[in-house]
């Protein structure tokens, strides 16, 4: 049976367990996903609340928020890598120099590189959380707030006791959607750092890609991809359980 030629059983998966690069890419994936999702939801929600309070200018905010979301992550990555983060020529580096921090190698230093790709992902996708949460906020019933005001509940109590519980389904949904995307993110890291320096920004997704297509060992690359699939399914199961729980 020719299709069984070169069949190695579970050898690839056994290799996985002892592969330090696999565990480090798993850690990078989890850090990348957790930080970007939390940042998107917190900033998105805060901005949505601020914009709700504003008397005018909401249309402008909606307009600007559309821009990053429709762009290709590959183009976004390229623009950040060059015009924003390049040492000296990049605007971020210029700001750092002006602020007296000195020129930094934003994509060459392992920690800064990871921070950079997290910031880029957050930059592109926070408008998504912002738009969804703003739409959900606008749809909340006004009379509950009236009643709360009559009861002299302060702003923080209104937020904690009314807004947050009512918004919970939307927030959980945003978290689920953004987690799926962050776990399988590829283009924005591939274009900015390619996973480097070394393996500092190599998320599991990128490791599977490099193994398969750069180092041309597709069998092991497939095993990595299956590991990523298992991780995605496990995390989404947990999130869907959270969504169902009340």
């Amino acid at each position, binding site marked *: 049976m020719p299709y069984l030629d070169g069949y190695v059983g579970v050898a690839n998966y056994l290799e996985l367990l002892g592969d330090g690069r696999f565990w480090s890419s798993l850690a990078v994936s989890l850090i990348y996903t957790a930080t970007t999702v939390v940042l998107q939801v917190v900033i998105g929600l805060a901005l949505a609340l601020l914009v709700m*309070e504003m008397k005018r200018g909401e249309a402008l905010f909606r307009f600007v928020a559309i821009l990053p979301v429709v762009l290709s992550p*590959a*183009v976004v990555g390229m623009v950040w890598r060059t015009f924003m983060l390049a040492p000296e020529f990049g605007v971020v580096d210029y700001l750092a120099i002006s602020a007296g921090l000195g020129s930094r190698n934003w994509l060459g230093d392992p920690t800064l590189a990871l921070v950079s790709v997290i910031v880029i992902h957050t*930059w592109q996708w926070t408008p998504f959380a912002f738009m969804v949460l703003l739409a959900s906020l606008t749809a909340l019933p006004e009379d509950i707030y009236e009643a709360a005001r009559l009861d002299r509940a302060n702003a923080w109590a209104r937020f904690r006791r009314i807004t947050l519980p009512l918004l919970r389904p939307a927030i959980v949904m945003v978290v689920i959607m953004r987690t799926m995307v962050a776990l399988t993110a590829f283009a924005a890291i591939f274009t900015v750092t390619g996973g480097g320096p070394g393996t500092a920004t190599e998320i599991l997704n990128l490791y599977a890609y490099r193994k398969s297509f750069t180092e041309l060992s597709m069998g092991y690359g497939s095993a990595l991809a299956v590991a990523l699939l298992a991780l995605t399914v496990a995390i989404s199961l947990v999130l869907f359980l959270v969504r169902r729980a009340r």
Partner: protein
Amino acid sequence: MSARALRRSLGAAVSLAFMAAWAFPILWSVLNSFKTEQDILAFPPKLLFAPTLAAYRDVLFGSASILPNLWSSFVISAGTTIVTMAVAIPAAYALARLRVPGKRFAGFYILASQMLPPVGIIIPYFLILRNIGWLDTYQGIILIYLSFSLPFAIWLLVSYFEDVPLEMEEAAALDGASPLKTLWRVIMPQVQGGIAVTVVFVFLNAWNEFLFAVVLSGNTVRPVTVAMFNFVSVEQTLWAKLAAVSVLAMLPVIALGVAAQKHIVKGLTIGAVKGGGRR
């Protein structure tokens, strides 16, 4: 100033700062695309400069023109959108209305397919396309794009079809209209909005796709997102040209995004309510 007014203006300032942060990288790329190489590399960064169209002239009509890549991107995106809609509309209608065997399973399958990490399926796709000689072809790339755009489109459309009142179809059936005719004449006008939302998202996702494009494209069919890499190499970055190409790659999706702003917000919100959606 009262505490309340102070808080309000502080809030406005913070939100304006975030707005500026979102717009700036895009605006800066546009500015850079009208600069000369020297002006881009000037320190401190130049806000005032003599604008030139040289970068655009080079990337559009120079020796390494980006036009074929823009065309590739367009053919892939338009082709994917057309085929997707032609299949997704009847499929979504069937799932919303007809007694199809395995309907529940199909619904689950469609949602589950949205969760697959693309890198997990790219290897078999690559091998299949290589075996049938479809690597680096339009039909190959469009076929693979259908694998993510079709489930997404069906899933988005089903909710719109479910919202159409059943009475309308019953009335059409009493008048002797066939199911297909009912779909075309009675239902379609009701779901125009949903179709617009779906078209926008399918087109955007196809235009912006990168991982599949990198692996499955080649010298004949290379979308602009991949071709952009020609301007950045280990030895040197062609800054002005890269800026012009970035702007050209952004232009169609931003134009579509601004024109279809309402649809996009709506699509995102439906996604948030129902769950799912790619990217």
